[in-house]
C-alpha cells in the first residue's frame, strides 16, 4: 500500500502526476505557441504602459500647431495628430487607459457575476428565478446601447466607463457560473461537506466557487478585449473618455476626419486596439484549451 505509488511509477511520470492542477495547465499552455505570442504581446504592452513616463520622448498633451499631421519620421516615429501632438507618446499613454479599461471592469463583472451565479445556482427556487431574469434583461439589451445609456446618465469619464462596462458584463459571468454550479451542487463532495456540518455560505464560497475558477479565468481573458473594444466604441461615439485624454478609441475618433489625408493618425491607434484585443483572445483560447480536461470533468 505505502510503496505502491513510490516504486511502480517511473520517475518522470510520477512528477507529472504530482504536478498540481495549475502547474499542469501552465505546462500545457506553454506548448501553445499562439497563446504564448499573445502573452508576450500583453506583457510588452503592460510594461510599456507601466513605465510610460520613462519611455516617451514627447509630452502626449503638448500641442504644437506648426507640426500638425506630420508623417512618421525620426523625430515623431508615428507622426503627429491634428494638434501636432506626438502619436507614439499618445498611444503609449493610451495603453494605460486601455489596459485599465479592459482589466478593472472584467474584475468587477467577474466578481459580481460569480456572487450572483453561485447564489442563484446553489439556492435555486425563487432566488434563482429572480436573479436570472434580471440577468436575462441585461443580456437581452444591446450591450453597447446599454453602456451608452449609463454613460449618458452618469456623464463621461473614466470611472464611469468602469461602472458602465461592469454593469453590462456581469450577467454573462453569472450565467456561466450558474450553469456550472447546477452540476457542481449535485456532486458528492458537496454532500460530504454538508455531512461534515459545513455552513451553506461556506459551501458556496469554499467548496463550489473554486471549482468555477477555471472557466472564470477563460471568461476573464475573453472579456478584457471586449471591454477594450467597448471603450473604444464609447469614446469614438463621444460618450467615453473625453479629450484630451489619449484613449485609443478617442484617438481613432479624433483622427477620423483625416482618414484620407493623414491615415496614420487613425491606423496606429486602431492597430494597437486590434493587436491587444487579438493577443487577449489568443491567451483566452490557449487557456481554454489548457484547462479543457478540467472543464470537461
Amino acid at each position, binding site marked *: *500500500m*505505502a510503496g*505502491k*505509488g513510490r516504486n511502480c511509477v517511473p520517475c518522470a511520470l510520477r512528477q507529472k*502526476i*504530482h504536478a*498540481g*492542477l495549475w502547474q499542469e495547465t501552465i505546462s500545457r499552455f506553454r506548448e501553445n505557441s499562439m497563446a504564448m505570442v499573445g502573452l508576450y504581446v500583453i506583457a510588452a504592452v503592460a510594461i510599456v504602459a507601466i513605465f510610460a513616463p520613462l519611455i516617451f520622448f514627447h509630452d502626449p498633451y503638448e500641442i504644437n500647431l506648426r507640426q500638425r499631421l506630420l508623417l512618421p519620421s525620426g523625430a515623431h516615429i508615428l507622426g503627429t495628430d491634428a494638434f501636432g501632438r506626438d502619436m507614439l507618446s499618445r498611444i503609449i499613454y493610451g495603453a494605460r487607459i486601455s489596459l485599465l479599461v479592459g482589466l478593472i471592469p472584467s474584475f468587477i463583472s467577474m466578481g459580481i457575476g460569480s456572487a450572483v451565479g453561485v447564489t442563484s445556482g446553489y439556492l*435555486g427556487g425563487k432566488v434563482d428565478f429572480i436573479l436570472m431574469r434580471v440577468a436575462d434583461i441585461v443580456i437581452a439589451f444591446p450591450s453597447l446601447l446599454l453602456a451608452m445609456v449609463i454613460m449618458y446618465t452618469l456623464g463621461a469619464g473614466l470611472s464611469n466607463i468602469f461602472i458602465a462596462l461592469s454593469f453590462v458584463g456581469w450577467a454573462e459571468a453569472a450565467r456561466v457560473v450558474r450553469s456550472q454550479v447546477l452540476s457542481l451542487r449535485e*456532486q*458528492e*463532495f458537496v*454532500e*460530504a*461537506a*454538508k*455531512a*461534515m*456540518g*459545513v*455552513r451553506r455560505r*461556506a459551501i458556496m464560497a*469554499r*467548496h463550489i466557487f*473554486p*471549482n468555477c*475558477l477555471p472557466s472564470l479565468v477563460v471568461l476573464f481573458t475573453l472579456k478584457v478585449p471586449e471591454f477594450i473594444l467597448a471603450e473604444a466604441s464609447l469614446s469614438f461615439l463621444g460618450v467615453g473618455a473625453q479629450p484630451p485624454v489619449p484613449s485609443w478609441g478617442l484617438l481613432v475618433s479624433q483622427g477620423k476626419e483625416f482618414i484620407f489625408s493623414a491615415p496614420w493618425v487613425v491606423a496606429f491607434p486602431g492597430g494597437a486596439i486590434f493587436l491587444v484585443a487579438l493577443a487577449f483572445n489568443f491567451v483566452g483560447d490557449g487557456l481554454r484549451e489548457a484547462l479543457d480536461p*478540467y472543464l470537461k*470533468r
Partner: protein
Amino acid sequence: MMQKLISVEGLAVRFFTRKGTVRAVDGVSFDVDDGGIVGLVGESGCGKSATALSIMGLLGPAGETTSGSVRFKGEDLLRLSPKEMRQIRGKEISMVFQEPMSALNPVRSVGEQVAEPLKIHLGLSGGEARLRAIEMLEEVGIPDAASRYDQYPHQFSGGMGQRAMIAMALICEPELLIADEPTTALDVTIQAQIISLLHSLRERLHMAVLLITHDFGVVAELCDVVNVMYAGVIVEWGNVVDVFDDPLHPYTRGLLRSMPRAKRRQRKLEVIGGAVPSLIELPQGCRFHPRCEYVTKRCFSEEPPIFQLNDDRLVRCWLFEGRMKL
C-alpha cells in the same frame, strides 16, 4: 447492558418524483449501541442510503422524512433545527461515502478538507488544525502525511482517498460513524485494508458504526448485529453469527446462498429470481412474495408483522407465525 446511542423508530422516507411517490423507507426501526457496529444490508435501491441520509438530515429537496423518530442520546434528530443539526453533523455523527474520488473536492487540497471539521466544530486555528489533520492522516495509514497534506485528490489513489475521507469523518472523534458502502468502489485487497482500519479506529475512538452495504462479507468481518433490508423495510434482525449460521427470512437465505464460495464446488451461482419491486408500486401483501420460494396464499394479501424468536432475533415472515408477535 450497553446503552443505546441511536434509536431509529418507524422511520419513513418518501421521494416525490414525477412518476409518483417513492416509498424508499417504510417504517424502519433499529438501534445502534454505544460503541457497537450495526450492519444494514440489502440490494441496491432497498432504502439503505435513504435511511442514512434521513438520519443525517441530508435528504435534499425531493425527499422527505414523513414519520418516525431518530433518538440520538435522547434527542430526536428529526426535530432539531437546521442549525442544531449542522452542529451535530461532522462532530457527533459523521459519514463516509462510497466514492472517495467524488466525495473529495477536486480543487482543494486533501489536508485542507480533512482539517475543515476541526475549524468548524472546535474552532481550531489554521496551524493547529493542520497539525491535528496530519496526525489523523498518519493514523489512517497515509504515509508521508505531512507532504501529502498539500496534495490534491487526483494525486491520491482510491484507497488513499478513502483513508483521507475516513480521517475527515473521524477527526472530531464522533460517537457515530455512518459508513455508506465504504468499500464498494475499491479493489478487494484495499477493501480488506479499509475494513481493518475501520475496525481498529473503532476500538481506539470507541465510536459506534452504522455500516451500510450490500456485501455480506463486509458485514461478517465488521458487524456485531445485522439488519437485512428489503424494499424499504427490515426483514430480519439478529446477531451476525446467528444470521449467518441460520438465516431465517427467505430473502436472507437467498442472499447468503447467492454469495460465491471457494470451498464448495459450484457450477452455477445461485440467484434470487426476479427483481426488486418498484418502490412506487409495491406488491400487495409481503413485499418479497413475488420472488419467494416459500410463498403461501397468505403472503399475497397480508403483510407479515415482525415475529420475535428470542431476545435477539426478529424476522418479518409468515413462516414464523406462532412465535411472539412484536
